[in-house]
């Protein structure tokens, strides 16, 4: 392979299959994440997005095939907010700093750590809530605490599971801009999302999965009616707006008509 033409692969999956108690969640997936990539993985609920991320990270073993990670690669993971134990007794600052576990044997926070944490929290607009318990935050802030924790670890590859689920438009823009900035600074990013228009369409590369990879490429090539029908099993229309694909659900007008008919009774 020509190392100059193709950036170094950070993680490569070869014919990866993952299963839970015999039921297959990810089927025969081959893909590579290269240095400088910014990849969005989309697919319906239960299509194996989280499972694929966990296999990439190595937190679940493949049933067959394999995942190859670059030797010494530092990764950080921002889990789906639903999977966080919000009742666990930790503050925002404690959450961010807990990732640094290799220093001395006395667990006191050092000045260096405090400064670094402060910078990260500042960047994510969390300085004012640093001492709060993680449950006492807005949805957007909760989302960002875990991004802050991941950044504190100074990863080369940042993996995020639905970083914009359940947040408002403004927070979504903020998260997206933050990720774009980080990507500009050289961070490689993989994320999953349900948000085709608000997030996936803005990324340089989108992978559609439904257990298997349906399509992998630039949004203009991937977000097409044919691919989306195969991925979601539902008809969708795609408009091109300002050079970007905009996905519309077909049948939405039909529902609207039904509901407005109801009100005329």
């Amino acid at each position: 392979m020509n190392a100059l033409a193709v950036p170094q692969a950070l993680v490569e999956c070869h014919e990866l299959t993952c299963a839970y108690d015999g039921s297959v969640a990810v089927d025969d997936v081959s893909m590579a994440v290269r240095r400088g990539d910014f990849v969005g993985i989309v697919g319906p609920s239960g299509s194996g997005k989280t499972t694929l991320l966990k296999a990439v990270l190595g937190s679940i073993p493949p049933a067959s095939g394999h995942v190859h990670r670059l030797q010494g690669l530092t990764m950080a993971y921002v889990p789906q907010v639903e999977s966080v134990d919000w009742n666990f007794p930790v503050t925002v600052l404690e959450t961010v700093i807990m990732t640094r576990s290799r220093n001395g044997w006395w667990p006191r926070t050092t000045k260096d750590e405090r400064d670094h944490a402060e910078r990260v929290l500042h960047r994510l607009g969390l300085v004012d809530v640093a001492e709060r318990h993680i449950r006492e935050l807005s949805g957007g802030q909760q989302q960002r605490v875990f991004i802050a924790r991941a950044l504190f670890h100074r990863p080369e590859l940042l993996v995020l599971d639905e970083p914009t689920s359940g947040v408002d438009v403004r927070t979504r823009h903020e998260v997206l801009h933050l990720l774009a900035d980080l990507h500009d600074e050289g961070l490689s990013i993989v994320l999953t999302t349900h948000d085709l228009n608000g997030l996936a369409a803005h990324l340089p590369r989108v992978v559609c999965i439904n257990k298997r990879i349906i399509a992998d490429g630039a949004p203009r090539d991937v977000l097409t009616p044919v691919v989306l029908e195969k991925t979601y099993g539902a008809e969708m229309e795609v408009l091109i707006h300002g050079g970007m694909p905009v996905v519309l659900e077909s049948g939405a007008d039909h529902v609207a008509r039904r509901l407005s008919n109801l009100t005329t009774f």
Partner: protein
Amino acid sequence: MIATLFEPFGYSFFNNGLAVATLAGALCGLLGVFVVLRGMSYIGHGLSHAVFGGAAASAVVGINYFIGAGIWAVVSGVLIGRIARRRIIGADAAIGVVTTASFAIGLALLNRYGQAKKSIEAVLFGSVLGVQPADIWAVSIVAVLVGLLVIAFYRRLLFATFDPDVAQVTGVKVAWVEALVMMMLSLTILVTMRVIGTLLISALLVIPAATSRMLTNSFARMLWISPVLGAVSGFVGMNASYHLDTSASATVILVAAIGFVVVYAATGLRGRVRVAHVHHI
């Protein structure tokens, strides 16, 4: 009046028991934080039953309690931890069955070969009279060891307890950290069982930790509040049991439970919300 209060301190058996109960309370309080936050109270319960089997077996075979039951405790603790961690369907049931069977074997062995009903009662409910200097040494050594380990591994313990998947990805050897927790838990049960008893030890693992959860939202603070509550329960409970002529371990648990109720009432909704997610006994 004052003289009556100090009367028990004149007996060395009481002083030994008091020292062990206080240290046992602190130790169970400390490990209870992990037990409660990880929802593994059934593991504490199962482990104490498994250790009972080991204790009975070593008594019958005639090897030292700390060696026989100790090896048994650490091995079964690490195995139980691994089974629970792999989230195999039915793991809870399997752990329950195996540890209860170990308990039953212990009972049968004591019935068949043990000296008397009295010794069985002592292991089930704990006994202050049976406390020997070796117990004080054992519980002190384990307390110091566990204290040092918790400090040295503080962040890894916190990370692996809060978020094992992410901790693993971030480079924490979660399997090792979990084995460490199970080992500390096994040793704690081993050295406190003779005074607290098999049946009540899981309560001492849960109650002070649950009470401390109501008092704070910080993991670091729970790690000292819970042992303090445990130690106070041990100390007050032992004294009360002398004056009330009640079972020492039952009185210790009652004192801890009264503490829980008082804090539950005093912290109101705030505390209740916090403790709502603590896994019960």
